[in-house]
């Protein structure tokens, strides 16, 4: 409901552009949340899958002239397979080791983007990526892209909510709590983890392809280690294991730089401080912290009411 009302309010101004990014980031945050919040597996390299989706879709459409609607699923398919293959060895690891392994993976992917100049244009980026077209409408303005992106985002949100409440979702949470116990109960945790890793990668790839066709220009800089950290921050701040939390986190972190634009050099500090403070005082993320805060305030009011 919110989503539909927004465009007429902001009349195609710069904010529309920002909101498109909020949509893409929400998709990415949800993808990471599935892996991190539900299944409890840390990934510090998700920008890599995002980038792969963007570049594969971009290259297929520019160099090979494929229709974007064919390129996007093709890219998602490749990324999914890749994630599945890497997932097997990588998900044997736990905790910090997994974090570092995914970090390494993300960085390797980033370096590949930079070095394979003939395909990706290297550090100068890839331009001229075509916009998406559907039934005669070309998605080349912010408002149109806004509807497109948010359409997909809402679909992803519904899908994830469904997944979380299904048998698969419960099995995921069992693995999160105690992998050994889950295995004892008959959950094939290994296959499950790989599947969710691949699913997470596929959604990220989709977001990446959409990003490429909206921006018409991509460069490796957007897909590095820093962005993986940003995604992680979005998920943590929003709330692990909550789809709505992912939206909150994505919205906050995409809009924050806009507000902080005046504070130029200070934004990086605020960023780091936010991370630290959130983990210390609101480990459940905003989605649980804010209602909890309200409850605390309400409880206190109640107490003073009865002397």
């Amino acid at each position, binding site marked *: 409901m919110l989503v539909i009302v927004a465009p007429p309010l902001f009349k195609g*101004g710069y904010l529309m552009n920002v909101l498109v990014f909020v949509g893409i980031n929400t998709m990415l945050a949800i993808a990471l949340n599935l892996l991190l919040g539900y299944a409890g597996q840390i990934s510090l390299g998700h920008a890599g899958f995002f980038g792969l989706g963007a570049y594969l879709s971009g290259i297929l459409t520019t160099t090979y002239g494929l229709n974007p609607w064919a390129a996007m699923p093709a890219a998602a398919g490749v990324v999914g397979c890749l994630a599945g293959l890497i997932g097997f060895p990588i998900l044997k690891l736990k905790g910090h080791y997994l974090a570092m392994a995914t970090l390494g993976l993300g960085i390797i992917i980033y370096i590949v983007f930079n*070095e394979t100049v003939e395909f990706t244009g290297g*550090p*100068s*980026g890839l*331009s001229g990526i075509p916009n998406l077209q559907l039934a005669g409408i070309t998605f080349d303005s912010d408002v149109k892209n806004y509807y497109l992106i948010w359409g997909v985002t809402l679909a992803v949100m519904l899908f994830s909510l469904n997944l979380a409440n299904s048998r698969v979702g419960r099995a995921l949470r069992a693995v999160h709590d105690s992998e050994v116990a889950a295995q004892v109960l008959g959950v094939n945790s290994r296959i499950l983890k790989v599947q969710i890793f691949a699913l997470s990668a596929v959604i990220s790839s989709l977001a990446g392809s959409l990003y490429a066709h909206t*921006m018409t220009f991509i*460069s490796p800089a957007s897909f590095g280690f820093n962005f993986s950290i940003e995604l992680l921050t979005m998920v943590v701040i929003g709330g692990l294991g909550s789809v709505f939390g992912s939206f909150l986190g994505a919205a906050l972190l995409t809009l924050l730089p806009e507000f902080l634009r005046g504070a130029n050099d200070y934004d990086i500090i605020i960023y780091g401080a936010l991370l630290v403070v959130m983990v210390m005082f609101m480990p459940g993320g905003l989605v649980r912290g804010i209602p909890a805060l309200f409850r605390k305030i309400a409880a206190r009011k109640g107490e003073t009411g009865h002397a």
Partner: protein
Amino acid sequence: MNFKVMSFIIAAATLLFSATVFAAPPIKIGALFAVTGPAAFLGEPERNSAKMVIDEINKAGGVKGRKLELVAYDTTGDATKAVQLATKLIKDDKVVAIIGPSTTGETMAVIPVVEKEQIPLISCSAGSKITDPVKKWVFKTAQNDSLAVGRIYEYLQKTKQTNVSILTVSDGFGASGREQLKNQAAKYGITIVSDDTYGPKDTDMTAQLTKIRGVHSQAIICWGTNPGPAVIAKNARQLGIKTPLFMSHGVSSKKFIELAGDAAEGIKLPSGKVVVADLLPGSDRQKKSLMAFVKDYQKHYKAEGDHFGGHAWDAVMLIRNAVENGADSAAAIRDQLEKTRGFAGIGGSFTYSAQEHAGLGKDAFVLVEVKNKDWAIVK
């Protein structure tokens, strides 16, 4: 707080800061500079220079009775942000022209936006492909890296040192330079015997230099921006490499000499004339504006005005001249820019036309050498 209200407050505050009340509204010039981030050595002097010269113009009464107003945003060197902020400048701030961005990668990303929205862009980045092929709304004030490469190759051809090794950084600037080095080699009879790269954050290039030492080339051309080239200079010295070292205009600042220390002696590179302004003959057309710029920048910012800041200075002056000639809308400014003939700026003498939007010729670069921790012109 409603975002629209907030931006209104910020816009109002900006206007308030722009001095006193006027009859006609100010001319809003947008700017995209990489003030923070890896290209800060470009963006910061650019922003400083732009502010400085706009303040001076306004103090002298503005242009045709109207003040200039600078709306500058920091892109942090990120092409994606540059695109977003370009949209913001055009849609929210309603600027009539945009100066910048600072890097080639960002510029290439922003070009489709300004072409679509029909706002003139004067880029401060070096990539030749920005204006080649010519795009209707895109100009640049930074010298083409093709000219820089030409300068070096010309010298090498003259001194018969035609077997070269190239070592370029793996970012937009280095990639563009590498492209130019390879494309122009045949024209000057140069043979590239080895082609290596290094990362912008690398701290040790002895591996690449050891390889280069083994191929016995006659010159080593390094294309990058600080601190990489300084490390390369030091590594080369450590490895006892006696082959002459050439750098790009990316390090034509005192900072390079400071970082490389003794290892910088004897290194040659193409540079805009501003770093050797005081050494130029009196007959040089640019000498007057160069000396004025250096002095002004020193007074305002207590630092040396370098040739990066000059790009922004040139861009502002070019727009100012366009307005002086009667232009006050985006399209009119664009048309007037194309009519620029022989404007003696910091980067060189600018002449634009419908087919030429880069505006500078070979005289934009001089070959300089590091001698006694300072610059000297190479004859």
